[in-house]
């Protein structure tokens, strides 16, 4: 009988150790202990002011324009460490610039000095893929594409930029002249990469990378002024030349801070 309390004591201690083992293991798995959060913030600007969809602006040729829709796909958004492997922030992201757009990624602690992504969708996901295989919330599903899915054999619009203009540029005039630049198809996939001053990410940090999109430069390109009086419509097919100009201007409008 004298050994009974000792036996019970040992049993209870064993139960304690066994019963709490999983909890300790779970704590070890808690994310964030060796990572920091990096926010990639898309910041559209128009003439150095925050871009507002639906606001009326002037282009360099004096037209009054209103951008109703600016949407585009970005794919394989990676942050690039000074050394080591790229960290995938997002495989596919649909940016609708009528609202805020931010990608968050848990990045291993370390130094980062670059960002890479594509404008558009990789060919293997663009054409001849049934969009109904995605959940409806996925940006490549028909519902999630926000109208950017064309058809199964032409894929998705990579860039949708459209609105209305008053070509006379007179304040108060109604904006009745439409322009629509809808660019898609595999050849229009544009890979981009940027470097920036080293960003140190420590465990628990929250850091930000800002992608600036100068929306005005889509028409008023640094090297190519698009005149929306004459060049105001492309659905890519049939006017690939204009589609290429628009996509080039768009790609050139992007910078990283």
């Amino acid at each position, binding site marked *: 009988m004298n050994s009974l309390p000792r036996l019970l004591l040992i049993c209870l201690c064993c139960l*304690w150790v066994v019963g709490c083992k999983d909890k300790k293991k779970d704590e070890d798995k808690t994310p964030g202990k060796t990572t920091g959060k990096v926010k990639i913030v898309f910041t559209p600007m128009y003439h150095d002011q925050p871009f507002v969809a639906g606001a009326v602006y002037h282009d360099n040729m004096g037209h009054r324009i209103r951008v109703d829709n600016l949407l585009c796909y970005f794919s394989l958004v990676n942050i690039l460490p000074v050394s080591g492997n790229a960290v995938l922030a997002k495989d596919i992201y649909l940016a609708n610039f009528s609202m805020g757009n931010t990608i968050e990624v848990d990045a291993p602690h370390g130094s980062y000095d670059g960002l890479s992504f594509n404008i558009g969708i990789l060919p293997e996901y663009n054409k001849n893929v049934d969009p*109904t295989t995605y959940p409806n919330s996925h940006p490549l599903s028909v519902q999630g594409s926000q109208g950017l899915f064309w*058809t199964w054999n032409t894929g998705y619009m990579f860039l949708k930029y459209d609105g209305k203009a008053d070509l006379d540029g007179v304040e108060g005039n109604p*904006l009745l002249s439409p322009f629509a630049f809808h660019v898609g198809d595999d050849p229009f996939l544009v890979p981009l990469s940027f470097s920036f001053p080293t960003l140190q990410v420590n465990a628990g940090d929250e850091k930000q990378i800002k992608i600036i999109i100068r929306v005005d430069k889509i028409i008023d390109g640094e090297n190519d002024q698009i005149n929306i009086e004459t060049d105001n419509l492309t659905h*890519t*097919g*049939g006017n690939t030349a204009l589609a290429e100009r628009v996509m080039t201007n768009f790609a050139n409008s992007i910078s990283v801070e």
Partner: protein
Amino acid sequence: MNAGLKYSLLILPAITVMVSCRYDIEELPEPPPTGQSHKTTPYELVIPPFFPPMDIPADNPLTVEGVELGRFLFWEKKLSGDNTMSCGTCHLPEHAFSDPQQFSVGIHGDIGNRQAMALINLGWSTSFFWDGRAMTLEDQVVQPVINPIEMDDSWEDVLQELRNDPLYPPKFKAAFGTTEITQQKAAKAMASFVRTMISAGSKFDKQRIGQYTFTPEEEHGFNLFILEGGSPDQVPGGSFGADCFHCHGFGAMQMTDYLFHNNGLDASFENDPGRFNVTGNPLDSGRFKAPTLRNVEYSAPYMHDGRFATLEQVVEHYNSGGIPSSTIDPFMKFTSGGLQLSAQSKQDLIAFLKCLTDNNFFNNPDFSDPHE
């Protein structure tokens, strides 16, 4: 070792175990709440070929009992102020669950300013009503009941009438495990029923799976549907098509992009600003939801205000290019000159639109009035 020490040694670790594992105990799943433990029969929803998955709210899973209750409620005239109208009064099966009248007439003889939308494949829709003011089916189905120009009832009165009807307490019990009748439960049941109203048996569906071959006219109409309008000399990319696919795409077989468009019906929108009433965004003035074109042969009249009685008028509207305005959709790019479709092309386009008819949908006994 004295007895006190022995017991202390025994009790101390026990307390330690209890305290140290408190967190784990709290993580144990809660028992199901009362009323949730009853047996229901899962409704086996069959997703047709090329359709996307249907998003069903986690708190309203499809059950046979819930769908049946929803069907009874859909056709229940007690949902109107004078017990003369049910949902089915304005959403008639033979008209693709729409109303052949331009504007439906409410219980007091009032009429609104919008056409009753066809109820087809709404389980895949992301917004409801012409202006998208309801975000879920559960939210949508309760609104006509209290609309003074429609069914003009109060949910308090409706619920009381349902409680007094010996038909309903057992049906609510079967669906939800309790005879308690609430607006939320009624809405869930009706939404469940509407989610089962799936149309996927048209010639177009059969063509996609190789069970039907278009006639030459239908084939031509289909090609017009999916091609850009205008000539390549006139418009970049023009392919002499009808430009329908931009807003009525068939990527998910629903013939809609689920978005809101101004399709050039009017120059100004004082009478009905459409989506603007919901968002307050001037860009949304004159924009309305692009409806599905499934069963469009039978869902006349057309447009949000039912202004067109025939498909010929609809096609002629788009052929004309529509009326320019500050919010007309960029896809309506032929306001000057129109699409210039030939008479034969217009006929063929309509021939294709009729390929979207699914007669089995209208005649499906699962959707008919169970009170008859």
